[in-house]
């Protein structure tokens, strides 16, 4: 029997998996996890971004932190491993606001900005979003199964659910 590998995606990181392996990213707070799935060629990718936009940053030693850089990089990596852009579909989760301050300023809500930026980049790249679980105030763990092409979300105190 084949051994299922669990590939961990850290913060500001991305990776891909083919059956039977799984991708997992732990504890998304204001960060957003982007799962890209090619159900025809059976290859899946997962990125964990921290920031919406790389514009204005001089230190870009790790472009995988930024939504606008990480998503194209993930698509490229998927293509190199047999994925076809036409079949790519996205599932996204995260962008929470972990601490709710009464004086919350929406322009400072990095979680919401991350969510918006990810959607914009996906739209520009013409990748449809199948489902999303954004916002709120809970941390999330995201699990991507490359064999079933299913994405699961784990939160504290709640049952694991399919995205």
């Amino acid at each position: 029997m084949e051994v299922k590998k669990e590939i961990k995606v850290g913060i500001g990181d991305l990776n891909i998996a083919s059956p039977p392996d799984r991708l997992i990213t732990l504890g998304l707070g204001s960060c957003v996890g982007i799962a890209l799935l090619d159900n025809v060629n059976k290859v899946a990718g997962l990125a964990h971004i921290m920031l919406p936009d790389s514009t204005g940053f001089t230190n870009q030693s790790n472009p995988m932190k930024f939504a606008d850089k990480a998503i194209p990089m993930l698509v490229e990596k998927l293509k190199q491993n047999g994925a076809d852009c036409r079949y790519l579909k996205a599932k996204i989760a995260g962008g929470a606001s972990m601490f709710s301050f009464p004086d919350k300023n929406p322009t400072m809500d990095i979680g919401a900005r991350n969510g918006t930026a990810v959607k914009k980049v996906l739209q520009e790249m013409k990748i449809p979003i199948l489902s999303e679980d954004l916002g709120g105030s809970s941390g999330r763990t995201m699990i991507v199964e490359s064999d079933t092409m299913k994405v699961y979300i784990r939160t504290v105190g709640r049952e694991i659910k399919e995205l």
Partner: protein
Amino acid sequence: MENDLNEIQIDALREVGNIGAGNAATVLSQMLNKKIDMTVPKVDILPFENMVEQMGREEDMVTAVMLKVFGDAPGNILFVMNEETAKSMTDMLLSGYGEVPEEMRYSAYQEIGNILGNSYINAICRLTGLSMLTSVPAIAIDMLGAVLSSSFIDAEQYSDYVLAIDTNFIQDGIEKGTNFFFIPKPGSLKTILKNLGL
């Protein structure tokens, strides 16, 4: 960059943390009516993953109170407790009450964070002559990874290494499952060091 601190500067920041946390520990002792000590503060300059690792696992459930720090050396104060410590602390604080509703515990956590954070910041202000203020406290009871990453990102710490001054509290000779962080915004440590003449 803030990562290129020399030994003398790191020592000075450790001392700043020491005075801040010493004050906070005294206040916590008075509040809980227990002898509370603290470990010598560390100046952590670590990749984010290692920062999480030294405290536990990403998905560990923690109770965290955050205060935003405004003024000359802005940043965030983050007080993280594991589940057991959080519960025992509020048990001590609310002893005498029979059934303690969850909201009352939340309120007590926030108040502990508030008092600790303010005594820490006030001590740093007295030492450095800087002017700093804190926000009201906000609480999160959630995964360690999510709480930590959000706090560092909120303090505009986006580089590959994150930086914090970190202390643990000790009660009856046992290190409690707590971490008390000052997470400075970029530039804040330089301001503190400058005011100390370093």
